[in-house]
C-alpha cells in the first residue's frame, strides 16, 4: 500500500465508524485524549512526554460536539477527495479558507481548523504531512558546518549551511523528511530563541570557533524546526543545547523541544529531543551575572505558578529555578548580555555554561 492509500484508508475508517454508530442507534461520537496539562505522561520507552488515558468525548448530543463532528467529516471528505485522490495539498491557512464554502461547517478561525487537523492526526495515528497539509513557512533557519541534500519540487539541491547560504542561513523546509544529511563537522547544535542572538553568534564567529550548528527557532518552534533538531541529534549523534530568554514562556519553548508540547504530545516521539540541555538564561544567571532585568508581569507570574504544577517541570532543577524567579520577580532577555560588551556572551557566558553542562 502506498502512503496515500494508507492515509485514505484511515480516513475512510473514521467515516465508517461514524456511519455504523448511526446504523446501530448509537449517538455518534469520537473519543480523543484530552489535551491538557493534567493528561500528559512520561513515556519511559521514548524518554518523552505523551498523552495519558484521560479522554474527552465529542458527541452529537451537544451542539458543540455535533458541529465539531460535522466539521470533521467535511474535512475528511476534503482530504480524501481533493488532497489524496488528486495528489494535491494545501496549507493550514488555505484549509481555513476552503471551509468558507461549508455553510454551518465553516471554521470560525484558523486555530479551530488547526486543532481539528491535530485531532485527525491523533485519531488516525498519522501526521498532517500524510494528508498533504503543510504549515506556512515560518522562516526558522540553520547556520553551521553541515552539508545536506534537499529534495525540492524542482529537483535535488546540495547545500552547505555555511558556504552556500547568505547571512540568514539555510531556511528549514516544512517537510524535513525530504532532507538527507551528507556530512558535518559539528560538536553541538544550539537552538536559539531570538534572531538578534542568532545574528550575534554568527557575527562573532561562534559557529566556527566551537563547531556549532546554530538553529534560529523563532520563538515557539514549529514542528519542522523541532523535527530537524531531533534528526540532527538522533541521526548524527550531535548534542543539543537550547539558549532562550529567561522568562516562563521561554522555559516552555525548551520544554516543547526537550520534553514534548501539550498541544502535540501525540507527535512527541517524532519531534522531541529528550537529551537537549538548557543553557539559559536561567533565573540564577540573573543573580550571578548581574543582568539588567524587567519586572515580571501578572501573566508572567501566573505562567510561572502554572509551570510549578506542570508535570514536565517537576524536577529539582526546574522547581528551584522557577521558585527563585518567583522570589526575584524579575526576568531577563538573552540580549541583556550586550550590556557587558558585544563579545561577553560568546567569550564568557556561553563557554562557562557549556563547560558546566559538559559539552566542551
Amino acid at each position, binding site marked *: 500500500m502506498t502512503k496515500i492509500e494508507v492515509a485514505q484508508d484511515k*480516513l*475512510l475508517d473514521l*467515516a*465508517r465508524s*461514524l*456511519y455504523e*454508530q*448511526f*446504523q446501530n*442507534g*448509537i*449517538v*455518534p461520537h469520537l473519543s480523543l485524549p484530552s489535551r491538557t496539562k493534567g493528561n500528559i505522561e512520561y513515556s519511559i520507552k521514548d524518554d518523552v512526554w505523551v498523552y495519558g488515558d484521560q479522554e474527552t468525548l465529542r458527541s*452529537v*448530543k*451537544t*451542539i458543540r460536539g*455535533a*458541529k465539531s*463532528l*460535522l466539521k470533521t*467529516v*467535511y474535512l*475528511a*471528505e476534503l482530504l*480524501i477527495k481533493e488532497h489524496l485522490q488528486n495528489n494535491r495539498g494545501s496549507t493550514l491557512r488555505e484549509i481555513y479558507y476552503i471551509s468558507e464554502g461549508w455553510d*454551518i*461547517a465553516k471554521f470560525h478561525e484558523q486555530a479551530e481548523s488547526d486543532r481539528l487537523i491535530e485531532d485527525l492526526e491523533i485519531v488516525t495515528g498519522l501526521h498532517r504531512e500524510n494528508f498533504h497539509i503543510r504549515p506556512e513557512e515560518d522562516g526558522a533557519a540553520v547556520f553551521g558546518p553541515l552539508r545536506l541534500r534537499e529534495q525540492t519540487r524542482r529537483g535535488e539541491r546540495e547545500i552547505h549551511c555555511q558556504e552556500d547560504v547568505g547571512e540568514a542561513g539555510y531556511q528549514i523546509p516544512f517537510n524535513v523528511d525530504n532532507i538527507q544529511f551528507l556530512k558535518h563537522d559539528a560538536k553541538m547544535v544550539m537552538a536559539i530563541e531570538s534572531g538578534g542572538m542568532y545574528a550575534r553568534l554568527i557575527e562573532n564567529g561562534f559557529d566556527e570557533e566551537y563547531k556549532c550548528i546554530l538553529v534560529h527557532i523563532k520563538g515557539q518552534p514549529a514542528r519542522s524546526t523541532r523535527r530537524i533538531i531531533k534528526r540532527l541529534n538522533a541521526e548524527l549523534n550531535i548534542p543539543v543545547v537550547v539558549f532562550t530568554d529567561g522568562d516562563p514562556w521561554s522555559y516552555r519553548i525548551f520544554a516543547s523541544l526537550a520534553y514534548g508540547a501539550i498541544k502535540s504530545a501525540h507527535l512527541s516521539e517524532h519531534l522531541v529531543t529528550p537529551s537537549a540541555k538548557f543553557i539559559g538564561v536561567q533565573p540564577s544567571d540573573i543573580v550571578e551575572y548581574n543582568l539588567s532585568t524587567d519586572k515580571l508581569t501578572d501573566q508572567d507570574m501566573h505562567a510561572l505558578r502554572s509551570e510549578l504544577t506542570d508535570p514536565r517541570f517537576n524536577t529539582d532543577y526546574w522547581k528551584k529555578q522557577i521558585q527563585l524567579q518567583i522570589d526575584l520577580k524579575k526576568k531577563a532577555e538573552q540580549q541583556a548580555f550586550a550590556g557587558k560588551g558585544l563579545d561577553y556572551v560568546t567569550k564568557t557566558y556561553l563557554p562557562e555554561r557549556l563547560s558546566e553542562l559538559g559539552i566542551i
Partner: protein
Amino acid sequence: MEIAEELAKNQKAISVAEFFEKNRQILGFDSAPRALITCVKEAVDNSLDACEDGCILPDIFVQIKRIGDYYSVAVEDNGPGIVADEVPKVFAKLLYGSRFHVLRQSRGQQGIGISAAVLYSQLTSGKPARITSKIGPDHRATYCEVVINTAKNEPEVLRTEEVDWERPRGTRIELEMEGAYVRSRRQSVYGSLKNVAIVNPHARITLVEPDGNVEIFERATDTLPKKSYAIQPHPEGIELGELIKLLRYTERKKLAGFLKETFSSIGSITSHELCKMSDLDPDRPPTSLDHEEAKRLLAAFRKIKVKSPPVDCLSPIGESLIKAGLEKEYRLDFIVTTVRPVSVYSGNPFLVEVGLGYGGELDREGRVDVLRFANRVPLVYQQGACAVTHAIESIPWKNYDLAQPGGEGIPTGPAVLLVHVASTRIPFTSESKDAIADVPEILAEVELGLKEIARKLRRYMTRQSALSERREKEEIIRKILPRIARKLSDILHQDEPDIAPVVAKIMGNVSVKRTIEKENGLMVVRIAVENHGETARTFKLHDVIPQEASDVSPAAKAIPIGNGYDYHWKLSLAPGKATSLTYKVRSEGQIFSDLVVEGLEAEVVTGARVI
C-alpha cells in the same frame, strides 16, 4: 435685670419659612441640578393629586426654559383648579394643606413641597411665583404673583387679576430660579418624569426641554387609579401619647362608642371586648380615663387581633398597571408583578407592590435598575439609605438566577426592579422625601414581595433554559445530523444512514423499532422499545396484523377487528429502560402496518404513529 430676663429678650419664635430658608437641603434643594428636579417633581405631584381628587385623567405640561442666568419652570395641568382666595396660601405658605390631618394615601402630605419650591425660587431669582388657575369653563382664570413673607410664613400677593385662559380648567405655575439642567439617565428631570410615568400610567406628561426638544410620556390606560378614602387610625401599633390625646379631645360620651368611631376596624363587639380586657366600663366618658387606665387600654389593643385596615385608604397601582407602566418605558421579555396585602405600622396602613422586568434591551452586565416609589412618587436620591434598597440587598438573588457579586448587595443582570410603597403616611428618613426609613414592618413586607417575584423569575428562567435546550437539540436534529449523514454517505458511497434512532436518543424520546426474521417457515417479529427520556413513561403499544399470532411474549391483549387483530401491550418503562416484545406469524401474505403508540405526546415518540 437678671441674666435670664436679659436672655429672654432675645428669645423669639422662628417662622417655619425662615427655618427652611436657612436649611434648604432638608427639602431637597441642596444642588443646582437637584433644585430644578425637586421643583418639577413638587409641581407635578400637586397636579397629579389634584387631578385624582377631581377624577380627571391628568394631562400635564412641563416646560423648562433658560432665561439669562436663570431657569424658568412652568408646570400646567388640566386639574380642577384652585379657588382664587386659596391660591396665595396653597403656593406661598408652608405647612398649609388639606392632607396633613387626613389618613389617606396622597403624594403630598404636609403642604410643604410646592411652597418650598416657591421659596427657593424667590430666594435665588428674587422673582415672584406666577400662578394661573381656572375652576371651570364658565369662570375666568385668576392670575396672581405671590411671594412668601418668610418672617411670618404668610403669602404676600404682589399682583392679581382676572384673565382669559383657553383651558376649561386647570392650574399653571411658573417659577424662575437658579439651577442646572442635566440630561442623564436617572438623576434628571427627564429620568424623574419617566419614573412618574411608569407608576402613573393614566397620566400623559409632556416635557419641553431647554433646547426645545419635546418628550411625551404617553398614557397607557384610560382608567383612573382607584380613589383613596380617608379612614380613622388603625389601633395596631398606636402609641400611648396619641391614644391619650384622642381620649382627651373626643366628642364621644362613652368609651365603647369612642373606640368604635375613632378607630378603623373596630366594631361594637371588638370595642366591648377591649373594655372587658382592660377592665373598664364601656359607658364611662373617655375623658375620664387616667394615665394608668389608658395604658391598660393600650395593652388590650396589643393583645387583641384586630382585622387589617380597609384597603380603601390606599390606592395601589395594581398588577396590570405596573405591567403597563414598565412595558411602556422599557422593552422587556418578561414582567412579573405582585401586590401584597395591606399591613400596618404604628397605626398606619401600608401596602407594598413589586414589579420586575427582565431581558429585552436592558444592560446584561451592570447592576439591576431599582425604581423606588412612595405613594406613586419616584424616589431618585439617597438610594443607599432607603428601606427598599436594604430589602433588595438582603435577598440572596443567586438562588433566584440573578447574579449577585460577592453574594450580597444589588444584583446584576438585565432586570429592572420596581417597588412601590403606598401608605397613609410614608415614614421618610428626611423632609426631602428621598428614602423610606427602615421600619421593620415595611422591610418585612418589601422582602416578602421581592421573594414572590423572585420565585416567579426563577420559574421563568428554568422554563427558558429548558426551552433553549430544546431549541439547541432541534438545531442538532434538523440541521446538523442530516448533514453529517449526507457527508458520510458521500464519502463512503453508501446510502444515507437512518438517523431516527439517534434522534430518539438525543431528544429523550421513546423509540420503537420492529425487526423481522424468518425461522422455520415462520416470521419472528421483535419490537424493541426503549425509553430514552428522564421520566418514567406508561403507554400502550398497538400492532395490527391480519392474522392470529403465536408465542406472543409478553402476553398481549388481542382484539379482533374487521380484517385482523389488534395486539396491544400496556408498557411502563423507567428512564433509560428498554424492553423487547416478540411474536410469530405465518409468513405468507403478511403485511405490516405502522406501529401505534397510545397515551404519549407525538413529539416524544420515534418509530411509531401516535394516537
